[in-house]
Structures are given as C-alpha cells and as structure tokens.
C-alpha cells in the first residue's frame, strides 16, 4: 500500500492503495467517474483514454504510482451537458454515436490532438485517430465531428 495523490479534473484525491492499481479502476470505481471505460485492458482500443498533462494515455495500463501528483483530465473534465466542450458539442450536432461506449476514447484522443493542431487536414486527423476503435463503425460522423470541432477550436 502506498499514499497516492491524484489530481482529477482540478480536484485532489488522496488514496492509500496498491500503487500498481491501474488508474482506470480508481477513476471508475473509487471516484465513480463514468467517462473512461474498460474496453480491452491491454491499451489496444482507447476506451479508457484520459489526459495526463495534456497527453492522451491509456488508463487501463497506467499504474497509479506513475501519475502520482499529475494533473489528470477525464471526459467529465472537458465540459458539461449545459456547457459542452467544442468537441463534445460537435459530436452532439453531428449525431456522432451509436452505442457510445467508445466515445470517451475518441473524444479524448481527438482533444489531445486538436489542442496541438486544430487546423488539421482530414489525413492528419485519420492518422491521429488510427489507434482508436469504434465497433459500431460510426466513423463517418465522428471524423466529421472532429474536423468541425477543430475549426471551432482554431477560431
């Protein structure tokens, strides 16, 4: 057991737990956050993606000891139903979902990318999203939404 401090969406939480615990389980079970999800547990699909210091990481394979004290942003930290982030709003406007389980990974991966390069080309967006899976294959709408959000973020 170790003392671990997680700064999630601007709030500080202190834990005394197994330091090898994957970050995802702390977010989902201890903090009861619903954004990051267990998809594969292997870092292959992206459903568990969160931002650590602005970088997209796979929380299912990230032991909490490696993010002790770091600023972590989850999907909940981007925006709210009342005030959605431009990416979230673009997904709503484009109706870019079917089951919605993968959305966390899609949106968080897009966020990390668009923060650096909002005016990306379609090819660059596709490249950035090449490690994320959506098995309902809502790809057409999702990529449209990401492009639209980038244009909004660049303004």
């Amino acid at each position, binding site marked *: 057991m170790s003392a671990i401090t997680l700064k999630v969406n601007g709030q500080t939480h202190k834990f005394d737990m197994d330091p090898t615990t994957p970050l995802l389980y702390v977010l989902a079970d201890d903090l009861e956050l619903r*954004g990051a999800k267990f*998809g594969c547990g292997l870092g292959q699909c992206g459903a568990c993606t969160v931002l650590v210091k602005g970088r997209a990481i796979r929380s299912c394979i990230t032991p909490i000891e490696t993010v002790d004290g770091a600023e972590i942003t989850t999907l909940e930290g981007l925006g709210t139903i009342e005030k959605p982030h431009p990416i979230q709003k673009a997904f709503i406007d484009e109706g870019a979902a079917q089951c919605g389980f993968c959305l966390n990974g899609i949106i968080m991966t897009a966020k990390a990318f668009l923060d650096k390069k909002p005016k990306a080309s379609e090819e660059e967006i*596709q490249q950035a999203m090449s490690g994320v899976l959506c098995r309902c294959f809502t790809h057409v709408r999702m990529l449209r939404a990401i492009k639209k959000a980038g244009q909004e973020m660049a303004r």
Partner: protein
Amino acid sequence: MRSPMRNKREVAGKPTLSLDAQAALERAGFSRRSFLKSTGALIVTFSIGGMLETVKAQGAFEGGVAGSPPLNELDSWIAIAGDGKVTAYTGKCELGQGITIAQAQLVAEELSVPFSYVNLIYCDTAMTPDQGVTSGSQSHPTNFNHGNLAQAAATARETLLQLASKSLGIPADQLAAEDGVISAKSDPSMKVTYGQLVGGKKFDLKLDPNANRKSPSEWTVLGKPAPRPDLPALVTGQFEFVHNVRVPGMLHGMVVRPPAVGATVVSVDESSVAGLPGVVKVVVKKNFIGVVAEKRWQAIQAANKLKVTWTPGAGLPSHADFYDFMRNQKPTRDTLLVNSNDVDQKLGEAATVVKATYHHPYQMHGSIGSSCAVADVQGDKATIWSPTQGVWHQRGTSAMILGLKPENVRIIFRRGSGCYGINGADTVTYDAALLSQAVGKPVRVQLTRKDEMAWENYGFAFVMDERAGLDAQGNIVAWDHESWSPVLGNRPGYGTPGNVITGLLAGFQPEPFRPRTPAPEPTAYTNNSNGVPSYMAGQVGGALKGTGTVKSERALMHNVASSFWTGPLRSPARLQNTFAHESFMDELAARVKADPVEYRLRHLSHSRLSDVVKAAAKTANWDPRPSPKPLKSKTGVATGRGVACVAYEGDNGFSAMVAEVEVNQDTGNISVKRVVLANDSGPISNPDGLRNQIEGGTLQGMSRALMEEVTWDDQKVTSNDWRTYRTLPLGFDIPKVEAVLLNRPDVAACGAGETAITVVAAAIGNAIFDATGARIRQVPFTPERVKAALNEVG
C-alpha cells in the same frame, strides 16, 4: 467519494429510470402492477427527480415481481399522467441502434402529444411487456405496424377521443387531437386535456386491432430526424452503461475460464490465493470458477494467481483445413428450402454450367467494451442489471442458473457496449449472478478481453457451393445452392442457459444437435436467412414466394456440430449466404458478358428489390458494361466497381450497394473509395437514424469483408485481442458513403439495421473482380488472398 456530477445524472436517464430511481423502487418493493394501480403521475415523477419522496408518499407496497404485463392490455404499454405526460413501455431496448428515439416518435405521433411529453421505459421485467429479444431487424416491424406499441398508442388516442366526446358533449368525429389536447373542430375553445380525461387512471382496455393508425401523410413527428436524447450524456461521461452501475456494498468478481476448449476442472487450489488482499471468496460450481474481491484490481490479480488443474482440451480441427473438414463432417442436419426436383436434369440440358465454392469464416461480435453485469442475489430473490437483448429470457435462465423461481428474479436492462447480436452479455449475466449468490452480496463482473473473445457465440462459418445452368442466350435456367455451417448453442431463450459458456460450465447442456438426413421435402416456403438466392422463384406448394425468375431451383443446407459457440451476429447467415449468391451472380453475368446490373434485373421478379438496384446504380452513375473492365496494367492500382443486392430474409427490407474500389496489384491491398447504398425499409420512421445504421453497417461490413476472422490452434481460440482479431480502426481510409433512402409510406415497416451490412462483401468482391479479373471467394479479402487471386488470373 462521489463524482461531482452525480446530481446531474437524471438527465442521462431520460429514456428510462435512473439507477437511483430503480434502486429506490426496488427498496420500496414496487412492481409494474403497483404502478398501474397507482397513478401515471407517479411514474413520470421518477424521470424528473424527487423519486424517493414520491414513493414514500404513495405508501404502496407490493412485493415480488409479477409476470409479463399482458401484451393485449393497453395499460401494459401506455400510462398518462395528470399533467398529460406519457409513459410508454416497450420490450425493445436501445443497443445504440437508435430504436428508442424512433419508438418515442411513434408514441408521440400516434397519441398526438408533443415529443417532449413521452418518456419511454424499456426492458425491465418489473415493468415492461415481454417482446422477446431485441434482434434480427424485428423491432421496426414488431412495434411500428398494426400491433403492440403502435396499436397501443392508436388505441389510446381513439379512447381519449371517445372520452372527450362524452365530456364535451360533441361527437368524436367533430373533435381533433393535438399536443395532448382534444378540442372541437368548430370551436377550439371547447377543449379538454388528456390529463383531465385519464390522468392517473388506468385505461382498463384491450388493444383495439381496428384503432385507426395515422397515415404517413399526416405525420409531424415520425418520418423526421430527431436528435438522440442520450447523446449529451454520452459525450460528457454522464451516461450510465451497465458498466457504471454501482450498488451499495458491491464487490468485484472475475471468472476463470478453461485454458482449452472442452477442458474440465480437476482441482482448484484455493490456498494459491490465500492471504491476497481483498479476496472474499473463491467460487467453484462444477466447471464454473470465479473469484470475488473487494476491489477490481484485487479480483483480477487473484483470478490470475488462482491455481486450477484442468483436463486437456477436447482438441480442435485444423484451422488450415477447416472448410474441407466441415464439408465432410458427419452427422449433418439437412434442410431443403426449395426443391423443384428437376435441377439435375435442367443442369444436364443447359448450354453452360457454372460452379463456384465460397468460404466465410467464423467472425465475432467483438464488442468494444467487454461484457459486464451486476447482480444482487439475496436469499431467494435476485435483482440483476444486464445488457441482455432479452430481459424475460434472461429472467427465466438466470432463475435456472440460480435455482430460484423466475418471479423472484428481476432483470433490469442497462445498455452495454454495442453487441450486434449475442456477445458476452448473457453469459456475463450468469457469471455475476453465480458469484453474487455465492457471497450474498452485490457483485459486478466485467470479462477480460480474452474471455470475451475466446468464448463468445461466433457468427457462423460457412462453406457454400453454387451451381447454375445457363441457356444459349445466357439466361439462368437452373440454380443449385448447397451450404455447410456449424452450430453449437444459441441465444439461451427462456430455458437453455447451456447455450452459452457459463451455462455449460455451471452444468447445463446446450440445445442438442439433431441430425437429419435426408432433408424432408419443403412443405412451406421459407427464405431461411437468405439460404434461397434472390434469383430463385421460390416455388413451394404451387405458389411463387421468391423474388426471382429461376424456377428450376434447389437450396439445401447442412448444419454440423461446431467446436465453438455460435449464435446470431448481425445479419446471421444472411450475410454469408448473400456473399455467395451475389458473388456468384456476378460470375454468371461475367460468363455471358452481361452488365451485372442488367443481368440482375433480368432475373428479378420483385419490384422493391429491382427498385433498390436501379436506385443504387443511378446514384452511382453506373456505367453499363460487362465485368471485368479491360485491364491496362498488371501492376499498380486498378479501379473497379461492383454491385450486390438483397431482399433481407426475403421480405424484411431491401438494399443494393455499388462499391468502387482501388486494388493495389503489387501489395494486394484493397481501398474502398465510394459506396452507394440504396435502402427500402418501408416507411421511414427516422431518416437520420436510418442513415446512421446504413453508414455503420457499411463500414462494419467492410471490416468483416477485409479483415475479420476467428483463428485457433489445436486447443484454443488464438484470436483473443485486437492484435490477433483485426478490425478497421477509426483512422482508416474511409470511403464516401452515400445512402439513398427509398421511402415507402404505404407498405409495412421492415427491418433497417442489417440490410446494408449484408451486401458489402459481395459488392467489394465484385468490384475487385471488375478492376482486375481476379475473383476472391473467401472472406476476409486479406492482401495475401487478393495476391493469390491475382496470380491465378496470371
């Protein structure tokens, strides 16, 4: 520690009760029946907060779970509150396919209430009628034609008009219903609201099969795009999937599956996990093994460390020779779908006979989130949150697994990861139930990626032989189709939990394989998962029930026993059969140097199927000519176009696709550049939802056609993660997808979720042929197979 967002979660649960409301209901012992005995207003209150207070104020208490609300009772479907708000109950659940929004549109339309008044509650055995399983493109036909939810709403509107007539003293035909208010056509100031007429009271009426449905020409809500109400919650991380269900005192369970197919437990060494932190219990029931711990990470570690001795596996057929193995497997169960008894004779007389064999692998549902369920089994009662497609089926089989009475088991649907058929949803529900029962506390189980993929009920592998006879003019005069496909298990239904892995491990048997050779002659026509090609006349008992012109016809299917679990995967067997039929039709057209579109139309007798073919060709700017097109170079990129069509299950939706592809002849890589999909699902309830299904179905079909295949060694499945079971990621080169929607207001509603995916593999395969002259007869079209086919052309 609580999420700061927690108090906003009711928004997420708009189409159904929030978890908190469900839990409160449970604590209060409420059942569907007591809702109806009390007031509609009460029900509506749940969805907008204040839940606990409302329940207490009612003071009603009725223990136990009743049977399904009767499907012929209006109160089973519709409740209207004092404020006019409508609660509708349905047995067709939201899997991500968009059926809830369409059902809410339907209720608003038929009842003449604002869309915002409708709260839809779906799939909870304490409240909603049993409509079987949400599957097979059946929700649209089941609830949007003259029965069930649609007819309930129509019955309610007509009843309200009669009540208003009495109340206002004006004949019903001089009244109009709009926005939940009934007023005199001559004097709109003479009016009464739905709430005033029936608010909080039961209807106590049967569904009226003669209640008038609105004509699509009158529609103001149906037939138009409506935004999905769950989207804001989904994109902000507020939506409650079954994976997010949290119950006070909940523990975490993990299961330990056998290391090989057919392996059974010899011994379990519980001491191997003794002393590990948080471990509550090791659970063993016959061959079912699980571990329960306080935290998820503890359960995972314990499951990994638990020492179990297993027998060797039963052994598996060679993957490399599997199709030949399956073709020669005995015994078989044979089924004749059509048989004109003259096929061999006509083939003998034909000017030309063409033969081809097609292969389709086992494929998996491969849900992006591994399956999850939460069960709370206390004594002789159980409450289970499950992503099952059939809550009443799940109630019956969970009761068997637990040894409880069905009426003491409540199944509450919570959305899982998109399933596309029977993924791990049912099996993980049994896992959670067994582990919860063993510890007497609520337990959450989410499968590992490997356990999800290695043990799910795969979509069927197929070997398909096609033979056709052509006359001197190139017309098809005889067609013979014969297929082999393995089966093991299925959906569990009401009473066969052994149809999925957990049920078998816990001691239940799958439905038995029943050999039957030879097949009896068909006595009634069935298209049977498109086992009958669209071009056959489908003559059984004198009537022509097919969609084609070929009267010398035979369609014979053989099922054999499978080593792997099988079950419905989006467009089950329809997709595989259609791949063979539509590829073969292309081969026939090429043999007689006919244009593939014209050749299809020449052999179709069904106008709705012909119409989608024509519509797709028109939008795609189809260039009429035979395939393949003259090849300029045998290296570099070649382009081509292909067409395929289907009458889904013979009459439940029609689609045709034109695909344009680039074939890299050096690497064998296929790039699909453009897809046009014409679709006819009858009257369109929600065009945006339909487009979303077509876009998703098309790309999922591409992934299945180009990449997906279950693999195994001599003991176990080896495709058990996203590196070993490949799928198209979000970043692949996506084709332009153009949906052409044929709206047919005057016919019955048909299926819409599986029409597009069914034709993808054949359309792409035909386009590859058009580009290169190479015919690929085996899915998936990997670069290696494309290269091999190119080499065959020489």
